[in-house]
């Protein structure tokens, strides 16, 4: 009966999240985490094995999508600057949070490393939505911020994989299978999609899911985590993915309808409100650490490459959501962090999606970039008005 109860509540919450997301103009993910907190704390919903499995798959699917959505042309055009800004955007909070958690807060090394990874992230989706709203997507500022975010994402995925790695003989199998999939998938997929694609039974989606499930299986056997190969697989398939808009859409529809909501609800369900309340001071410390280390690391480089938009860039690089939640959840499920640490880390991650973007938009919005863009792209409109 518990299975059916949990399934029914989760289905209801998934539907409610999508409706609230549309009405409030907030992402479904934020609402799913909030409703997950409600379900876990007040409705007695627990993460049954099937929920944990689907949630784990949802996390890997989101990681694959993060890799597949990387715009390689933007990366190539801004390679040096993005490598520096994105690299330091990962490294500064990773080291800062890890050292603080271990030496000042007394966390175990592994737990401190998970905190470092969870707080090192930058959310491409949060950043992109802000850039679209401000009209900066196609400006040099916007492109550099996006390219830097890809680099930070890669750093997070690699660091999480290393932190959770516990070497055994099967780890070699995991590495080998991952390598084979990453090398062969971009070669096989176009032929497979050409022959079997574009059908209602969706062999393309099933093929991608199969690859991700294989990665998860061998990662488990090898006492590791599939996040890194899933991200790299997405990266090597990004051109195929971006050329095939139907595939993109179908994968998102399948993922967002059921799989990724379970991931975020599951994350929310594992947050304990009472523990979070007791860890309020820890929340403030970790939130401050993430923001300060991002500023210390990113601001000087942003000042060098984007002198007029340095603080705006820094604040956008301080956002986080999916990868931070994923890292915290992976740490909790591996037994590396406890529920208090998990609750506080996810709360900090969610706050970092909201607070820096609001400050950036309110106080550091680079209006001048838009005015320059508008003047160069639509001179006729302004000139006609001037003649009058």
């Amino acid at each position, binding site marked *: 009966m518990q299975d059916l109860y949990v399934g029914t509540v989760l289905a209801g919450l998934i539907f409610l999240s999508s409706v609230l997301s549309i009405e409030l103009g907030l*992402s479904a993910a934020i609402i799913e985490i909030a409703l997950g907190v409600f379900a876990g704390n007040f409705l007695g919903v627990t993460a049954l094995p099937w929920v944990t499995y689907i949630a784990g798959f949802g996390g890997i699917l989101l990681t694959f999508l993060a890799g597949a959505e990387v715009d390689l042309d933007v990366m190539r055009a801004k390679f040096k600057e993005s490598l520096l800004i994105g690299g330091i955007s990962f490294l500064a909070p990773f080291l800062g949070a890890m050292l603080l958690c271990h030496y000042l807060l007394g966390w175990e090394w592994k737990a401190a490393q998970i905190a470092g990874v969870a707080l090192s992230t930058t959310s491409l989706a949060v950043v992109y*939505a802000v850039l679209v709203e401000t009209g900066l997507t196609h400006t040099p500022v916007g492109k550099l911020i996006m390219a830097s975010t890809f680099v930070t994402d890669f750093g997070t995925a690699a660091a999480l994989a290393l932190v959770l790695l516990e070497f055994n003989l099967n780890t070699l199998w995991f590495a080998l299978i991952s390598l084979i999939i990453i090398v062969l998938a971009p070669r096989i997929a176009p032929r497979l999609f050409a022959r079997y694609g574009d059908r209602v039974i969706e062999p393309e989606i099933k093929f991608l899911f199969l690859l991700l499930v294989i990665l998860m299986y061998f990662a488990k056997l090898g006492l590791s985590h599939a996040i890194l190969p899933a991200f790299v697989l997405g990266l090597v398939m990004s051109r195929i993915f971006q050329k095939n808009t139907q595939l993109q859409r179908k994968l998102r529809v399948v993922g967002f309808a059921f799989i990724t909501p379970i991931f975020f609800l599951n994350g929310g369900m594992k947050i304990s409100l009472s523990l979070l309340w007791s860890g309020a001071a820890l929340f403030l410390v970790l939130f401050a650490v993430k923001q300060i280390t991002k500023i210390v690391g990113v601001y000087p480089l942003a000042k060098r490459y984007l002198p007029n938009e340095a603080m705006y860039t820094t604040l956008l690089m301080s956002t986080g959501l999916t990868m931070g939640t994923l890292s915290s959840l992976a740490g909790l499920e591996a037994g590396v962090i406890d529920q208090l640490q998990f609750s506080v880390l996810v709360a900090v991650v969610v706050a970092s999606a909201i607070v820096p973007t609001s400050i950036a938009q309110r106080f550091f919005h680079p209006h001048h970039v838009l005015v320059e863009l508008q003047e160069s792209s639509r001179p006729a409109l302004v000139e006609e008005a001037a003649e009058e």
Partner: protein
Amino acid sequence: MFHKILIANDGSENAFRALEVAVDLARRYGAELHQLSVEEHLPRYAASLGEVLEAQREELDYFDNVAEKAREIAMRAGVQLECHIIAGHEVETIVRFAEENRFDLVVIGHKGHSRIWPFHMGSTAAKIADHSRTHVLIVQ
């Protein structure tokens, strides 16, 4: 009196009523008529880039249809309508667009697509009238 008129159109019934008034004014004064639609419903704090891209595509499709319908209405009255779709906060974007492009009249419906926020924050039309240095005509 009016040389450049801006109609803010979110695709609602009220906005199309405002469009009819704007078209009539543009015809009477021989004014240039532009339409601005603001994409403001992109999901904030999204979990994946795809969520934002899909929402953006849906908004663009919606506003493309709004623009097509508006052009037909203007054309029937013998007025040429230039349409713009910009992402951003509705009030801020309309006010800034009108000022930067030196429009001398903004026409807007008194009530657009109300979601939960507008009930708390007051109507878009009232806020535009408050913040704009351009003449604003609110159509009931």
